[in-house]
């Protein structure tokens, strides 16, 4: 029984990291129709910069902020310089952002070298709590706490604020929104920046459950994030949350009981969902 609890809990902390990454991807796809394949590379960007800052200053908070800021900035430049000319050209967006996976990974190789980078764990969070015969890391609890705070906040922004209403309306009918005199452009830029920042932040705190970061993180992460978005459904916080937790818990439980099968979990979930429920678990219904 304890094994199940620990396994589900670590799946949930992993799921929170996936949620932070996938939520941005999902909103950018839902609102702007942009498939940003470089989103995973932004996670890597945030992780490398943030962990270096955190190790230099000894503060996880500063590291998280630095990672979020740099990833947001890179995302902002990516959108302004390239993607903004490619709205509605989804294949071209995929290929350009695919190119940026290579570019960003190679720049990181240049700057930081090819060694994997260990996560930064502040000494306060270095311990673990005991669950039955097993122990569970405090850092993972903190990640779950961050998820427990951020998810309701993002949900509240989406459903209860004016900006959230504009975003939802923008997903349903951008032309009507324009007719009503609302300019979507600043909203788009802000959403893209926020999505990239969340990805960078996820990289800094996610390095621990991911077991450190490598230059391959951009590719590994984007596939998982796409799978989460497909499973959860495009363009909603609750969808990304449901998809990420499903993915995290299934992967973790499979990893405990059937390690050889764990690698296949994302594919089976994704293919099964695409066949039986193409709009995703909690996606916005296709208008």
């Amino acid at each position, binding site marked *: 029984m304890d094994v199940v609890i620990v396994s589900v809990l670590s799946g949930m902390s992993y799921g929170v990291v996936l949620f932070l990454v996938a939520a941005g991807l999902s909103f950018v796809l839902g609102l702007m129709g942009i*498939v940003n394949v470089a989103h995973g590379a932004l996670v890597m960007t945030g992780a490398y910069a943030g962990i270096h800052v955190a190790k230099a200053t000894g503060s996880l908070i500063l590291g998280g902020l630095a990672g979020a800021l740099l990833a947001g900035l890179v995302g902002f430049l990516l959108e302004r310089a*390239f993607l903004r*000319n*490619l709205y509605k050209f*989804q*294949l*071209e967006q*995929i*290929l*350009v952002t*695919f*190119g*940026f*996976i*290579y*570019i*960003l*990974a*190679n*720049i990181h*190789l*240049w700057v930081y070298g090819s060694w994997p980078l260990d996560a930064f764990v502040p000494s306060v969070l270095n311990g673990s709590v005991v669950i039955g015969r097993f122990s569970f890391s405090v850092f993972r609890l903190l990640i779950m706490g961050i998820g427990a705070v951020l998810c309701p906040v993002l949900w509240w922004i989406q459903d209860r604020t004016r900006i959230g209403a504009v975003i939802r309306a923008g997903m349903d009918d951008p032309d009507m929104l324009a007719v009503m005199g609302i300019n979507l452009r600043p909203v788009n830029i802000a959403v893209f920046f926020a999505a990239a920042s969340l990805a960078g932040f996820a990289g800094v705190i996610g390095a621990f459950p991911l077991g450190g970061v490598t230059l391959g993180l951009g*590719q590994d992460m984007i*596939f998982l994030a*796409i*799978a989460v978005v*497909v499973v959860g459904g495009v363009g909603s916080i609750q969808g990304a949350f449901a998809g990420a937790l499903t993915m995290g818990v299934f992967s973790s439980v499979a990893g405990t009981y059937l390690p*050889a099968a764990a*690698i*296949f979990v*994302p*594919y089976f979930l*994704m*293919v099964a969902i*695409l*066949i039986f429920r*193409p709009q995703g678990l909690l996606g916005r219904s296709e208008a």
Partner: protein
Amino acid sequence: MGLTKATKGRLFRLAPSTVLIVLLATAPAWADISIISLLTKIIIFGVLAMSLDMVFGYLGLWSFCHAALFSVAAYVDAILIQHFGVSFWLAAPVSILAAAAAAALFAWIGLRMSGIYFLLITLALGQLVFSVAFVWRAFTGGSQGLSSISYPNIGIEFSPVSFYYFTFVIVLVCAVILHLLMKSPFGYSLRGIRENETRMIAIGFNTWMHKFIAFTISGAFAGVAGVLYVHYNGIIIPSTGDMASSGLITIMVIIGGAGSLWGGMIGGAIIYILSYFVSLFTPERWPLILGACFVAAVMFFRGGVYPQLLRWWRLASGAKSALRESREG
């Protein structure tokens, strides 16, 4: 002269491909061994790029799993030969059929979707192949892959040059078959589906079946390339079939010009020749340059190199026939 205008036009039109074929056929006379090896790689990946172009350019299906289909054939061939001692004559057709079967399965699952969702599901299925290759150590060798695969054992003592000719002949046959297929009514119906699927359904085409068959055939040609590659390279590792490789093939097709068949080979040639020279000077920075190629190809060469070359050549061969050609093509 006894030449009619039409014959002259045809001669003019066929001149570039004739020159290219003659150049490739005489390559061992003018190139050293490393260039021959590079050319072998280019024409093998040319077949793969053409097989992708068949569904990507002509049919408009955004497949992101062609490198995976390619590696299915490569792995099956290598496993049959290394683990079971099967002869090349049996292993090669079985591998090609395996790639076609995988393509049929992927199409059966994926064709429920269209556009970006087709891309995502083929991407996922392609990564599935990659994961199987990674996990199934007993047969695939895991992350180490399978190595020391020799040239095909068909009673000829292969050298790099004779293997180049062997590849060249097979590639030429594949290219001609694909060319005829795209010129056939079937090929034109694929273009019809790309342009307006609803109308094709309305005039009585079973578009699902057309897409399914096209994808399966495309998988078989990807398989041919895979078999050639595994004997060329001597080693096959999981990442040969991952999403990055599929993206690279797509970029070759885009650079060359989607929907022009030969374009894929030219795009591949550009990428691999560039890679060859970059690896001489600054191998560390190749991913950066490759990424820049992706960006530049999409931002600036969306029409592709090959159609542009074709247009210039036709202009040179007389404006009138160029006009007629562009209206037909």
